[in-house]
């Protein structure tokens, strides 16, 4: 390839196809007392263009289980549609609510068996009667890990240290929500592929409780003050 062709080809380090839309993202899930808080930013980008600045990356898989999406928007939407459908079927056949473990492993199967075609990193988190609040992260290759708390997406690298330092198990739900928003806003500040608003959902025995933080009300950012 001549040097001149190199000049016009510098920004192709994404692994997505041309024009494919990505949730370059910040997602996280923090267990708290009685349940779990899931949190995500709202930026969906095609390269450096913001295709949707108010997306909803928190998808409900069943009444008490949510999935945080990162990676290809098309792939994650298709996956969550399937898992939602299968969990619904599972509930009808067993007569009870699915456990988070079931949902996570269903998702893992789909990703693992299609690993060459998919680009999806998800966090499956929720509440069930058996285990209370739990969090599973499923990486690009289909590894499913149960973790004390999880972060994902391109923005997560900026806040892994912050959360390692400030997360405590069994936090009060309001405090967990506040910590999730704080971490998410720090990631959104530094990661160009994350931004917009912060959506959170608190999941416990009472169901799902949503929250919305507008871009102007972020705990930190959108730019640092220095």
């Amino acid at each position, binding site marked *: 390839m001549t040097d001149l062709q190199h*000049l016009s080809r510098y920004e192709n380090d994404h692994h997505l196809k041309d024009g494919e839309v990505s949730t*370059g993202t910040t997602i996280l899930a923090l267990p708290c007392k009685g349940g779990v808080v899931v949190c995500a930013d709202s930026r969906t980008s095609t390269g450096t263009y913001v295709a949707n600045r108010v*997306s909803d990356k928190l*998808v*409900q898989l*069943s009444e008490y289980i949510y999935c945080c*999406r990162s990676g290809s928007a098309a792939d994650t939407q298709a996956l969550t549609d399937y898992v939602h459908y299968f969990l619904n079927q599972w509930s009808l056949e067993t007569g009870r609510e699915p456990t988070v473990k079931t949902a996570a492993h269903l998702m893992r199967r789909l990703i693992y068996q299609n690993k060459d075609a998919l680009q999806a990193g998800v966090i499956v988190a929720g509440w069930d009667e058996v285990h209370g609040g739990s969090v599973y992260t499923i990486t690009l290759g289909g590894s499913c890990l149960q973790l004390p708390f999880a972060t994902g997406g391109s923005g997560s690298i900026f806040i892994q240290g912050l959360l390692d330092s400030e997360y405590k198990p069994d936090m009060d739900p309001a405090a967990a929500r506040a910590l999730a928003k704080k971490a998410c806003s720090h990631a959104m500040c530094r990661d160009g592929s994350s*931004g917009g608003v912060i959506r959170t959902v608190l999941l416990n025995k009472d169901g799902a409780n949503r929250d919305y933080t507008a*871009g*102007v009300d972020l705990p930190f950012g959108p730019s640092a003050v220095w």
Partner: protein
Amino acid sequence: MSKQHTTRPITTGTSVVGLVYDGGVLLAADTLLSYGSMAKSFNTPRMVSIDERILLGASGEYSDFQEVVQKVKALALEQKTQSMESLYEDRPLSAKSLWNYLRAVMYQKRSKFNPFWNDVVVAGYENGSSFLGVVDKLGTTLQENCVATGFGAYLAMPLLREQYRPDLSEGEARALLEDCMKVLFYRDCRASARIQLAKVTADGCIISEPYELDQSTGWNAPSMIRPVGDLDGDGGW
């Protein structure tokens, strides 16, 4: 001995937007420096004044911009103090001739496959009229009443073309540029809400301190707040 060649930008700034109004030229740019997708620095000015009479702003590789500014400042100083003409009269560097000089420099660099990876905006006010021009990394020049580099070429130019009038007041020009910068902040992954405005008039250059754009109405439409990922929604966007 192999020479270095710039192959891709590393540390970058995004759009610079500018327009001519009644009495001068107004430029706007955000103060964000990106390192790939990471926001590296939030208070980096990407517009400088040369000799307090000419504004230079650039998007693209920041190190190349710094180099260009250094060369231009040296050139301006040399012309003011060491040229033969300067012994006899004050003939400071004009914006238009600086623009043309940059054209020559950029073209020569690109012909050696080692460009300054920038889109440079040059603005000035001389002989009673405004000058606004842009030079890109290939050495292409444009002299226009409205310019925008980077994403601004796609998102801001339509807004500028629609609202531009030759008799815009400074307030109207500022409002129009702020609107453009707001759209860029919403839709460009490499843009921030902290911006700077710079103007050049017959009285010289002024570059504002960085300030935050007003986003108070940008995030509260019901369609934005409504969650679509729930069971009664479409499964998430």
